[in-house]
């Protein structure tokens, strides 16, 4: 498993706040229900989308195929492997 604790927590908590906590604090009024639905769906869709992008890269099956020039540039600017 190539997951890292920090980003998963950060983004899950972030969207969790938007989708679960925020709906409780929507001001009362005729549009309260709509606003709640909007918040929850925003959080759900955005979180799912982020999660898929993250999980698709957790265990890469292939690596990027690059020209050697690009690789030299990468070696210069991004640094050495850890």
């Amino acid at each position: 498993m190539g997951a890292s604790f920090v980003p998963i927590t950060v983004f899950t908590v972030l969207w969790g706040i938007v989708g679960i906590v925020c709906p409780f604090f929507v001001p009362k009024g005729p549009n309260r229900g709509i606003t709640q639905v909007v918040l929850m769906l925003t959080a759900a869709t955005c979180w799912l989308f982020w999660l898929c992008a993250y999980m698709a890269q957790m265990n890469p099956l292939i690596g990027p195929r690059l020209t050697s020039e690009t690789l030299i540039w990468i070696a210069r600017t991004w640094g050495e492997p850890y």
Partner: protein
Amino acid sequence: MGSLFRSEEMTLCQLFLQSEAAYACVSELGELGLVQFRDLNPDVNAFQRKFVNEVRRCDEMERKLRYLEKEIRRDGIPMLEIPGECPEAPQPREMIDLEATFEKLENELREVNQNAEALKRNFLELTELKHILRKTQVFFDEHEGGANTTESMTRALISDDPNRHIGHVQLGLRDKQESLEFLPCFVAGVILRERIPAFERMLWRACRGNVFLRQAEIDTPLEDPSSSDQVFKSVFIIFFQGDQLKTRVKKICEGFRATLYPCPEAPADRREMAMGVMTRIEDLNTVLGQTQDHRHRVLVAAAKNIKNWFVKVRKIKAIYHTLNLFNLDVTQKCLIAECWVPALDLETIQLALRRGTERSGSSVPPILNRMETLEDPPTYNRTNKFTFAFQNLIYAYGVATYREVNPAPYTIITFPFLFAVMFGDLGHGALMAAFGFWMCYKEKPLQAKKIDSEIWTIFFGGRYIILLMGLFSMYTGLIYNDIFSKSLNIFGSAWRNNYNQSTLESNKMLQLNPDSDAYTQTPYPFGIDPVWQLAEANKIIFMNAYKMKISIIIGVFHMLFGVCLSLWNHLYFKRRISIYVEFIPQILFLVLLFFYMVLLMFIKWTSYGPNAAHLGSDDPEIVKTSAYCAPSILITFINMMLFKTDPNTRPQCNDNMYAGQIGLQKFFVIVALMCVPVMLFGKPYFIMKEQKERARQGHQTIEGAAENGAAGGAALPPPQHHDEDITEVFIHQAIHTIEYVLGSISHTASYLRLWALSLAHAQLAEVAWNMLLRKGLMSRDFEGGIFLYVVFAGWAAISVSILVLMEGLSAFLHTLRLHWVEFQSKFYSGEGYLFQPFSFEVILDSAGQGEE
């Protein structure tokens, strides 16, 4: 519960209005706009209704106002917008005043116009005469000068020697200059310039060349008084001889609508006449100016009030139209109306009615009665400016059945989200969001401008959708890591170069191995790693695998959500049987087959890949979870449906993704297939059972009634049941089931359009960058700067027109389809009809649009 989730509860009401108070009450209700009246005399001809006279009077007033408006527009006088609030509908007695005012104005205007026209015609004639005198002078001067003789001498010659001139004619017009001197008669006139060639030809042919025509163009255009167009005319003068030719020439002139004017032969007479004409023209000019001034004053005064009057008249007309829908009661003192009313607004309506009664000074309050009915009430969703556009997207498909779950609140987010999955690009999203934000921010001024271009109206109506679509596209663009086809490296890529210098020098292309220290073993935290944008060789392979999977994942969640909404419908309408034989098998079918596939995707993502602790290990246990052993989800799914296992071609790997996979899959497929007959026969079976039950009970009641009858009571008619034909139910259910089962497969595949469009968008953006902007950025020196300037313009134009507008439109349409077909088919029947309240606002709006 918010009103948008379901349509409003409606009640049918009966309204008794005192005839004196009816007008005022309906007026108040029109201001409110919450009541839909039903036509109570549908078979009465429109001309036989009670208030036909009033409506006709209003029509007449409207016609007069339109006439006034036309005149005002013709003079280009600005019409004042109504200051502040719309005027209320005037009292019926005010109608007479209004009528009188309009009558007076119209008559005055017509008179002024008539006078002006007569004057103008006069003016035109005089001007033409003036021109004739001036131009013919030139003709006469010419020939006098050319022949070196005086006119009197010519005359003398003609009278002296008629033979000679006959001889001349017989010889034909050999010499024009010469022959002129001997032509005794002429007519002068004015003709439209474009008719000249035909006129000339006609004259030549009809008179066999025996006439002589001279013409000169009038330089300034003249105004045609009947149409007030500017026309170009020419002066002509025709010389001929003999009465026969004269009549012929005159006929031709008539035929060509030429105006003939008397033109004296003697120069002194002509001069005198010209003087007279000039003075008369001057007089006329002053009179005309005064007439115009008067007309202008009248129109300016009218322009101040015309909008106001329009509103008043339209309101009166609307009220009488509504009153025509009412029934008179027997005593003729009371009007009866039936109307659909939102249940929540009954109080407001009562208040409005009371206001109306007070205004009319009637003593008897109106009565509003609730009625019981079996009819389907209209669908009414209270929207605001934000939800309105989304609700319209739904209505474009079909109006919700009364009290059915309304998809609009969910569409507010799912619509921009699905759009953004296809349109994901931070740059293009930002452009779209900026445009949407500008329209929302400048809402009021833009609305006030009333731009009536159709495309603009569509964009402006969907401003909130555009804003949200832009914002979501920015988010998905960040996740795709795409900004005009370039990537952002915010968190630092998870990939490094681990090849040494000699390898790099000896190879052109190299692939980084994730199962080595080239990959940090923890992914890029937010979105796609920027390294993929650089990997031109296999970026598409990686992106396709990723985007196809997310399309299916999003699609399955979307459809599951739709099926869950159908549960909410069943619960609300208390269709318990439908829950058991429709909802449960449906959701089982979807979950066991397609959600299971989604789960397989997640399993593949998590369990196959490099092992951080044993990089590049050959240990057979570790190889089993390596990329080498990752199965294809699609093949796995197809095999699952076919109950088949592929022969193992990779001996190092496990056959299954997890223990007991084959058995579980078989179980899932069998259960899913068993759901199909439940969907197919469940509902008809229960309906049949219910009918039998009811039939038995019906028998009992009839028997009971018979007994009662025997006991002396009146025989009751047997209770009526709307028994649906059972074969119809079967066919209906079969269609539904086939649609759902086949639909699940085709709809899942249909969500792959998310992948296809987002791929197309990314590729197009890349092509635009590589073919244009890169060329500009790579050119050097001073000329390079100029080249870049030009290239950037081209790239920006293509980005906006093709990538944002066209791609945006296509993504929008695909999103619309995904919502209408794939999502709404799971729960939405859309068989209702729209609540159309009697509202002045709507009536005035539509009238205003029709007029423009």
